[in-house]
């Protein structure tokens, strides 16, 4: 298979403009003859569904939640980047492009990232026009804050709830179209398979989560806006329902899956408190502006932080990275915290935590200023841990937060299946091996509001508006396949719960494919996952029936897919014997123990092809060509 990224020719800054002109359009009178399915209602899905409906297409939108407003984009805290240069601090489209390429450790496409930076400015205008209440200065103009990986202030925010406000903006645009009848909304309806006719995506199979009804829906194009797969680790900052099922089942029909091992582990999360833990809560990256990270110099030191004198503390980030200190990028901060804990210096009952200390900031700025800056985060910490972070330092530990990998897409966001598109976190395209803070919201909205409305018309104009034959056997076959899997899951009636399998898988992934990976560990993980998967299909206990709201059954299907994806992540991590961004191979490090990229061997996108049940996947490589940016080893010393 030849991977064609369809990157347009010409100078970087002209590519998108020129490409838009070259794409075919659909005549306004013909648009209503096309049906488009959008799966997922997060930033990418809601913005895409609304924008396509505004253009005149018939849109069907699906979400597994009870309302489109609950998609997990809602939980993003910090902000959204845009190259507005309102603060006059030297920002530009090119600088945002450059920072994102470098932050991604040179494993993303220049053309995609430049387009993202270009449309970032339109996103802010669009959101403000919708009534999104961004933070403002006293003069009435928009405020900006700084974020990791950049030396300019380009992050727009709405308190600590930027994702919520942007999603509610997209949700309101979607609601308007639902009211007009141009979008048919299906809530509590989960996509369980793709319908393929002659190698093209022509519809989906869904299960109504209230009634269990399994149904098919036809469309000229299917857009997967289904988010990331961080829940393969069981514990992550993702919502409980976040899953890979739609993307994975498309993968099994031939959509290549790119860079599955690229996972972002966020350094500042509240540590695990016990075996009952169901999720991990992120504390915004902004805390590292004023908090100092440290561990005791003495191993397994059980004293309270306040009883450990200054000279017995190791501020390890400041010691190792004097120029960036506590503000090193996410991947570096996470790895160092793990290193300290692995060496026995961790704090708290589990020993899997480091201190994030605000004592100096409180002394310097006063408690009121610290409260004004971070009050809501401190409250959240106190609520979860029962401790007062103004008096004692916070305890933090890294947690899985975002997945840079996803379905392989070309410049048009088309997967390798014609008619099937992937947007937002569900695709792989813009963040390389590490995503910068405040860039996920930008990408979701860029894909949905600005990219897909232009690119999907080219495909639709090519295939024509001929109605899709719902009597084609492909629909009945796809439906029967889903029914058979559902029946199978309910019939095993084994002894282990779905949650037990999920937790076991998560432990394997975290241990061997988490913050640090090595050849032997990955090989071991592959065997363990295979064994766990075999056991799952023999011994899982899914209670209840299909014809009702059955949360065990929903989760069983998702965990079954995670059990397959997990193996591919391990295989991908094994094949990439270099360190880059969030992917740290212990065999590939510098003398000082930093990540060592190997551009001569691995400057490509790994795109995996499914070849059948329990068959090894086939690797295809998309070479990355850097024409504008010079590749360098990142240094934060």
């Amino acid at each position, binding site marked *: 298979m030849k991977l064609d990224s369809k990157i347009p020719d010409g100078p970087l800054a002209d590519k998108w403009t020129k490409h838009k002109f070259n794409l075919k359009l659909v005549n306004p009178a013909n648009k209503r003859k096309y049906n488009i399915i959008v799966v997922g209602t997060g930033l990418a899905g809601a913005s895409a569904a*609304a*924008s396509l409906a505004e253009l005149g297409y018939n849109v069907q939108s699906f979400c597994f*939640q*009870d*309302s*489109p407003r*609950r998609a*997990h984009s*809602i939980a993003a805290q910090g902000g959204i980047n845009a190259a*507005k240069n*309102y603060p006059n601090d030297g920002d530009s489209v090119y600088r945002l492009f450059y920072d994102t390429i470098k932050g991604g450790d040179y494993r993303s496409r220049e053309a995609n990232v430049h387009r993202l930076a270009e449309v970032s400015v*339109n996103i*802010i*205008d*669009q*959101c*403000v*026009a*919708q*009534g999104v*209440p*961004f933070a*403002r*200065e*006293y003069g*009435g103009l*928009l405020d900006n804050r700084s974020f990791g990986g950049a030396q300019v202030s380009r992050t727009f925010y709405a308190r600590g*709830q930027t*994702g*919520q*406000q942007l999603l*509610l903006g997209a949700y*309101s*645009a979607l*609601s*308007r179209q*639902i*009211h007009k009848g141009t979008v048919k909304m299906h*809530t509590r309806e989960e996509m369980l398979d793709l319908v393929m006719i002659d190698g093209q995506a022509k519809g989906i199979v869904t299960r109504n989560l*209230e009634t269990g009804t399994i149904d098919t829906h036809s469309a000229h194009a299917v857009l997967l806006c289904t988010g990331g797969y961080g829940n393969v680790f069981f514990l992550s900052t993702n*919502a*409980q*329902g976040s899953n890979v099922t739609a993307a994975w089942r498309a993968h099994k029909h031939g959509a290549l899956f790119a860079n599955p091992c690229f996972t972002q582990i966020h350094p500042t999360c509240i540590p695990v*408190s016990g075996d*009952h833990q*169901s*999720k991990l*809560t992120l504390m915004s990256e902004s805390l590292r502006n004023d908090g100092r990270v440290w561990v005791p110099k003495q191993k397994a030191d059980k004293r309270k932080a306040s009883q450990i004198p200054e000279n017995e503390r190791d501020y390890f980030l400041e010691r190792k990275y004097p120029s960036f200190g506590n503000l090193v990028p996410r991947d570096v901060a996470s790895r160092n915290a793990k290193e300290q804990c692995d060496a026995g210096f961790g704090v708290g009952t589990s020993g899997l935590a480091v201190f994030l200390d605000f004592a100096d900031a409180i002394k310097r700025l006063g408690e009121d200023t610290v409260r004004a800056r971070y009050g809501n985060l401190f409250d*959240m910490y106190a609520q*979860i*841990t*029962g401790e007062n972070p103004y008096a004692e330092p916070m305890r933090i530990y890294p947690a899985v937060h975002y997945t840079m990998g996803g379905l392989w897409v070309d410049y048009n966001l088309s997967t390798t299946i014609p008619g099937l598109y992937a947007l937002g976190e569900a695709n792989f395209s813009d963040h390389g091996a590490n995503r910068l803070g405040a860039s996920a919201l930008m990408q979701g909205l860029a894909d949905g509001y*600005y990219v897909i*409305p232009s690119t999907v018309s080219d495909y639709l104009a090519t295939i024509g508006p001929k109605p899709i034959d719902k009597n084609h056997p492909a629909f009945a076959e796809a439906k029967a396949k889903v029914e058979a899997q559902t029946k199978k899951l309910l019939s095993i009636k084994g002894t282990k*719960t779905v949650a*037990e399998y999920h937790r076991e898988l998560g432990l394997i992934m975290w241990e061997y494919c988490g913050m640090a990976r090595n050849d032997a560990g990955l090989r071991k993980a592959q065997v363990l996952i295979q064994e766990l998967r075999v056991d799952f299909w023999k011994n899982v206990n899914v*209670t209840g029936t299909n014809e*009702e*709201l059955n*949360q065990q059954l929903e989760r069983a299907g998702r965990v079954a897919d995670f059990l397959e994806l997990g193996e591919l992540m391990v295989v991908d991590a094994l094949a990439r014997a270099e360190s880059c961004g969030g992917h740290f191979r212990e065999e590939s490090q510098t003398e000082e123990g930093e990540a060592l990229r190997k551009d001569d061997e691995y400057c490509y996108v790994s795109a995996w092809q499914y070849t059948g049940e329990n068959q090894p996947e086939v690797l295809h490589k998309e070479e990355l060509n850097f024409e504008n940016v010079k590749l360098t080893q990142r240094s934060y010393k």
Partner: protein
Amino acid sequence: MSGHMNLTLKVWRQKDAKSTGKLENYEAKDISPDMSFLEMIDVVNESLIKKGVEPIAFDHDCREGICGACSMYINGEAHGPKRAITTCQLHMRSFHDGETITIEPWRANAFPVIKDLVVDRSAFDRIIQAGGYVSVNTGVTIDANSIPIEKEIADDAMDAAACIGCGACVAACKNASATLFLSAKVSQLALLPQGQAERQIRVEAMIDQMEEEGFGNCTNTEACSAVCPKEIGQHHIARMNREFFGAKLSSPKK
């Protein structure tokens, strides 16, 4: 481990919308005070599955207080005994060993029970669909900074916009009124310059929809704001009323 608790739960079980439900008793054993309330239910559910009993169905997703999915009526209070948090942010250290905890779904005609603690809140979506937006299409609009907004007004609009659509306000209201929910959106958009063009038709359409959905009227008991996890205040209801009267007096739809 020390400090672990044993609790008795009285949980509303209802097979589906058509069946009659009832409270069932369950034991929650060896519960750590560090668990969240929903993690405690997870533990109970795992033990129910092992005993061959169907686990308790409940809505939940983000488990960090922002998606608005979780919705439990705990010991007679929406989202439980603590203020300004959702059920998923409630931790077991707020309870004591030996306590009996009663857990019910939201109760309102407009929120029919789907199963156990899961209710249908799609009426909220339809209220927003009726007019809770600014009618702008995606495209190249004017530069964001060409619409200056006074900071205090932007902050007030943000207070209203913080609504997570959980429905606790309806559950706590003796009339099952959705006024606080509705007023949050009306107030946000009435405050902002972007919302001015559709001010009058918006409030009328949304209130019409609320009535059609079967929510009750507001009698200003303020129970809604008391349980609101985002502390949305009563002045938004006052602003909505003003908007509504203004619309009734002058809107073309009169």
